[in-house]
């Protein structure tokens, strides 16, 4: 068993209304010094079996076609628990 994390973020040039709303709220709540906030999504996938290249390729496919809307979002994939994973 291993956990693969997929982080999905809006592309940098795409407007992020949620991030902006958070950023606008910060000074009101007394948190200064934050010039920009971007909000994204994090998916934690529990993978059966080894996280080998084939598994990562599969996850790349599913992230590209389903988890992220690649017209406006980028994604990154990383393995969190490498206990049983092939290097």
């Amino acid at each position, binding site marked *: 068993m291993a956990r693969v994390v997929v982080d999905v973020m*809006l592309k*940098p*040039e795409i407007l992020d*209304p949620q991030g902006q709303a958070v950023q606008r709220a910060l000074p009101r709540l007394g948190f200064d010094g934050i010039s920009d906030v971007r909000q994204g999504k994090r998916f934690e996938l529990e993978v059966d079996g080894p996280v080998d290249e084939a598994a990562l390729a599969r996850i790349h496919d599913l992230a590209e076609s389903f988890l992220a809307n690649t*017209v406006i979002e980028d994604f990154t994939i990383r393995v969190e628990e490498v206990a049983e994973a092939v290097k």
Partner: protein
Amino acid sequence: MSRTPLDTVEHAAATPDVELPWAELGLKKDEYERVVEILGRRPTGAELAMYSVMWSEHCSYKSSKVHLRQFGEKAPESDAMLVGIGENAGVVDVGQGYAVTFKVESHNHPSYVEPYQGAATGVGGIVRDIIAMGARPVAVVDPLRFGAADHPDTKRVLPGVVAGIGGYGNCLGLPNIGGEVVFDACYQGNPLVNAGAIGVMRHEDIHLAKASGAGNKVILYGARTGGDGIGGASILASETFDDAKPSKRPAVQVGDPFQEKLLIECTLEAFREKLVVGIQDLGAAGLSCATSELASNGSGGMRVTLDDVPLRDSTLSPEEILMSESQERMCAVVEPEKVDRFLEICEKWDVIATVIGEVTDGDRLEIYWHGGKIVDVDPRTVAHEGPVYERPYARPSWQDELQADDANKLPRPATSEELKDQVLKLVGSPNQASKSWITSQYDHFVQGNTVLAQPEDSGMIRIDEETGLGVAIATDGNGRYAKLDPYHGAQLALAEAYRNVATTGAKPLAVSDCLNFGSPEDPAVMWQFAEAVRGLADACQQLGTPVTGGNVSLYNQTGEAAIHPTPVVAVLGVIDDVARRTPVAFQEEGQLLYLLGDTREEFGGSAWSQVVHDHLGGLPPQVDLERERLLAEILISASRDGMIDSAHDLSDGGLIQAVVESALLGGKGARLIVPDGLDAFTFLFSESAGRAVVAVPRSEEVRFNDMCGARGLPVTRIGVVDGDTVDVQGEFALSLSELRETHEGTIPALLK
């Protein structure tokens, strides 16, 4: 590497031989040469950005202009027109001191690339056109066209578009009261996402986009400017800067409806306090468009400091700032002594507002960046005096063959059983099936003034609670008819929308249109466009309903295959008291059903020919505009005087489609008798125009017949509201439950 020097006007004059990427920005060689001729030197990068985007087909109407003139030349005399074509949106007098502004626009291509955001920002754009006129938006409508219902890509595009429209409109708190959903393989790579909006104001609140009065300040307010929707400007940017950009452009525009809501309130409050001299929303072409149009509609002179534009992305180049299509921005011209109050209102609404320039007494639009003058142009040459093309057009060689392929000769149902099967097939086909799965995702009733919404013939909004004054809007278009005969097809679209408004009891007043066509560089497409515009202008003249504005969307084609020519027509009407409206649903058993108008054997382009035979050929139904006008008068009078309790216009699918819809909505069946002189098939499926079915209470029968007789409208009694079946006597009976299952099951099954 150091940055290349700023491309100022002086720099441009001193370096005449620098090659600019005009072709990559979409300009033709002769267009670029014209820019050089106008300026007397090569343009700067920023100037080239402005000219290229403002002279694009989308902004300049360069292919369509010569034809669109007819809407002005043939405009009927109308007391109702307060502001005509050419402003952000037309304004119509609806009585009692109220004025209504409305417009339909396209957002086709962005919605194909990114369905949710494309459709959402389409709603945002049309709503800003309405507030730029000083009106409060009260409702939106969305005519949509997608590829084949069972095509996999339709499953990608449609749910995104529907969610985008619903999401943006619901967040703004605007009811969605009408529109259409049509499927046809011709829209596969080119879905049509048109969006319309209606706004209401008092007569004295009308505002026009212009900047006059030297010293007045130019204020940009709303969202910060980012890299949204920048087309070819990135090419210029890469010439100006060597450093890497955040990521490759162009970027999809993302809408923020909550920001737009603030923009609405903030703008209307500024209007209320009479702080605004001129105003313009930022849509396509962003600041390029707003500054050049405001300046050229005023005295001409304006100076803008681009450094003052609030940015979301500090790496943007001046060219990109000028071309950015970031949403939820507006530009206002305000007298100097009122600037403080204007900024105060913006601050109250949490809207960023910045003075970016001022009106000058010259006639040049000058834009500065880092102290250098990067734009120095006559704004009229950017905004209004762009290229105009007399594109060649020719009736396509296949048109005769298409028209000769007569749908009236297709095999018809031979037995009652076949007739019944074809009725079921029709009412369950994607185009004729209930669209409630889609339209129920929109909020119809927010604000509490919605009187009618889908699936009624027109959407209706109450605008005065005391008097019950209301307005109705219907949008229609039939690409199949227009393909067979663009001239009459466009007229049929107008006739249907006009009829739909009248069917609900409102008097049609004015028209907005969204003309969706293929590439104007194809003479066959250009012919379709020319014919459709001529047909629409002629018909508007005859019906007395002027075109107040609209938009043209060309290049809706993939490779050689253009979409069907699809003029979408919106008709706005007024009703003195919305309590008098006529709904589609059957109200009471025992009421008599009358067919108004003449039924002929007309199956060209019909839903029946598509559903049963997958056929498109022949001629569309005949157009008789005088008949449409008479029918409308009868429907309005009958509604006002309480002679009819329900009414439904007949269009695609013919009589049986209309009766099934009225029956299912009312939960009451109908017994129908085939009238003398008609066969059952023609009676049920013909799509002759100028017809409606009405339900008349027995107490009103004589009065109603007398009225039709006196005015010379053919009227035929065809049955009675009764039972829980639709029973065509001597042919077949279908239970409401079976019809409901067929009619309402199709769309959910396709999109599951």
